[in-house]
């Protein structure tokens, strides 16, 4: 127990430690801090859009900066570091090794995140998380744009270092008696997402450098005024970031694979099916990047190829959903807080996937592209699936990290409010998109349907805001003063906590 209150340690001992649970704790606290910061930006966006006209944000540039930093923060500074936190805590334990393979590299990968976060937040760029050229080259104000580019560059290196560490830990440091097929699915999820990072990320790393030199005026890769092609950037960007979507979602699915069998008190329906689905997803994720680009003027053949590639990812995701449901089927399910989050996550994962099939069908994409439909669609993944899986897992690992129990009632209220809020915001935004409202707009004409749906979404967002405030109070209070957890069986499941992955590492 890292934060064990009985034996408090000075903060610098944790900060300068290279032990995997200490680095995990640093990742955890950093990612949650950024989650609250990014979430606050989301609330200000929703408040602004409650009525047409200026509400709380006085100018369009500030609004554009807010949604840019909101997206960048929650993807790169919350979701990715949170997954690393869980991986750091549990991957070494699951493969029965004393630490990560390269402890110092692990600490370095973490310590690249705070400076990158500082660059992104102090710069506050305005060119969206996608940094579209030629806007980002000729029009976006510096130094914010350049600080964003450097921030992302640092985060990219951090991701690559972290991925190498996970791959080596799982493949090379696992206990010799443990065949790869017996490695738990959560560790498998880190193996597959890390492999995707290694293959996908270098492309964006190159594109970022090209973008920077374009901005400096020494090259013109993406600037049509000097013969470059902005669509080339779109290809490079999405070649990295479509697979990256799976990098974000796969660890969350892995976390659900830990929670669901535990609280269904039944083994996973098919571990083999889970492994196959992870492998399939990591391969197919590379076959669909240009489905983000139908509207850039791709040829009919290109669109067809990428539609098929996109649809090919659906069966693998569907295998996971089947596996979850089949695991719960006939189990003695205990609806504790982590299980509620996991079940909510499955429902929203299914909805997000169904909406994705609509986007990938070529003619329908021209209805939904760059509208609020897309905003609703990907938020059902990042919020509905990834955040739900992650928060569920956070409740699940809470006794392990703190030795104490969270307040169960508050945890359940947090779930109910978040679920209702998520449905209100993002299902409504799907419909709003069908009514034609473009995304990334500071203001909109007073069309009655648009106003009504924006207001429903804003109320939903405020409900999520309240639930997250309860969450923060619960975490802080319970970590310090919560009831001591029964470490053998905190949820009275009648089975040992973390069995069969006993902690083999010596107390730090």
């Amino acid at each position: 127990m890292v934060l064990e209150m009985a034996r408090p340690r000075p903060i610098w001992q944790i900060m300068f430690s290279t032990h995997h649970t200490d680095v995990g704790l640093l990742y955890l606290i950093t990612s949650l801090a950024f989650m609250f910061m990014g979430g606050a930006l989301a609330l200000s966006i929703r408040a602004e859009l409650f009525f047409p006209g200026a509400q709380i944000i006085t100018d369009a540039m500030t609004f554009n900066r807010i949604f840019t930093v909101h997206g960048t923060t929650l993807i790169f500074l919350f979701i990715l570091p949170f997954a690393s936190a869980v991986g750091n805590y549990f991957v070494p334990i699951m493969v029965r090794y004393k630490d990560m393979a390269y402890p110092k590299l692990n600490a370095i990968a973490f310590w690249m995140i705070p400076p990158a976060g500082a660059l992104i937040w102090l710069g506050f760029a305005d060119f969206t998380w996608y940094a579209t050229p030629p806007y980002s080259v000729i029009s976006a104000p510096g130094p914010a744009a350049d600080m964003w580019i450097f921030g992302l560059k640092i985060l990219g290196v951090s991701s690559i270092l972290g991925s190498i560490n996970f791959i080596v830990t799982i493949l090379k440091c696992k206990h010799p008696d443990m065949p790869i097929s017996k490695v738990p699915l959560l560790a498998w999820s880190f193996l597959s997402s890390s492999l995707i990072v290694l293959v996908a990320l270098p492309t964006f790393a190159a594109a970022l450098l090209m973008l920077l030199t374009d901005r400096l005026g020494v090259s013109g890769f993406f600037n049509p005024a000097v013969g470059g092609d902005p669509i080339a950037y779109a290809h490079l960007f999405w070649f990295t970031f479509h697979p990256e979507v799976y990098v974000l979602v796969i660890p969350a699915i892995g976390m659900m694979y830990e929670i669901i069998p535990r609280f269904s008190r039944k083994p996973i329906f098919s571990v083999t099916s889970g492994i196959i689905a992870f492998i399939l997803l990591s391969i197919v994720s590379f076959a669909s990047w240009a489905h983000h680009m139908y509207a850039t003027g791709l040829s009919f053949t290109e669109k067809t190829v990428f539609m098929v590639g996109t649809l090919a990812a659906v069966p693998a995701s569907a295998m996971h959903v089947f596996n979850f449901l089949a695991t719960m089927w006939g189990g003695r399910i205990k609806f504790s807080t982590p299980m509620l989050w996991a079940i909510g996550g499955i429902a929203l994962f299914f909805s997000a996937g169904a909406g994705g099939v609509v986007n990938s069908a070529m003619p329908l994409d021209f209805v939904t592209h760059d509208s609020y439909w897309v905003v609703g669609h990907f938020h059902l993944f990042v919020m509905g699936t990834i955040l739900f899986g992650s928060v569920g897992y956070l409740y699940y690992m809470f006794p392990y990290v703190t030795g104490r129990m969270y307040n169960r009632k508050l945890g359940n209220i947090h779930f109910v409010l978040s679920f209702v809020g998520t449905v209100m915001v993002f299902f409504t935004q799907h419909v709003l998109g069908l009514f034609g409202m473009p995304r990334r707009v500071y203001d909109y004409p007073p069309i009655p349907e648009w106003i009504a749906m924006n207001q429903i979404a804003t109320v939903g967002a405020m409900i999520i805001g309240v639930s997250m405030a309860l969450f923060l109070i619960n975490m802080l209070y319970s970590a310090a003063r919560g009831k001591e957890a029964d470490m053998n069986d905190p949820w009275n499941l009648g089975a040992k906590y973390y069995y069969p992955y006993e902690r083999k590492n010596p107390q730090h």
Partner: protein
Amino acid sequence: MVSGHSNMPEWVYIGVVVALLCWVGAEAWNIERLVEHIPEDAKLIKVTGQQWFWTFEHEDGTKEIGELHVEAGKAYKFEITSKDVIHSFNIHDYVVLLDAVPGRVNTVWFAPTEAGEHDIQCREYCGLIHYNMRGTLYVSEAGA
């Protein structure tokens, strides 16, 4: 591996999912093929996006800014480009959507059916006043 249960339901389920996807893909392919076929008598309108307004040039050389006048019952072909950054030309009511990319010309067509007014907007983030890069499509009665 002895799993103690049959995997048959999973295979049936995967089969159903794959069949559904094949149907969606085939339908989408077929419809897109029909939608992309530009009629030969379509009149040309050149669309240029720039920060933050739309310019339209008709076949006869007349230009309009922020407004586009067309006739119901005729087919029109848009050749879309941009002078500065990427925009996205969108008449949502007629599902006309294509990016205006500097250095490229993208083509899309439509045939308005009834007289009326429709919103034209920019669907791709293009900077400060992206939210107000709007215009109006006026469709007049056929033969008017």
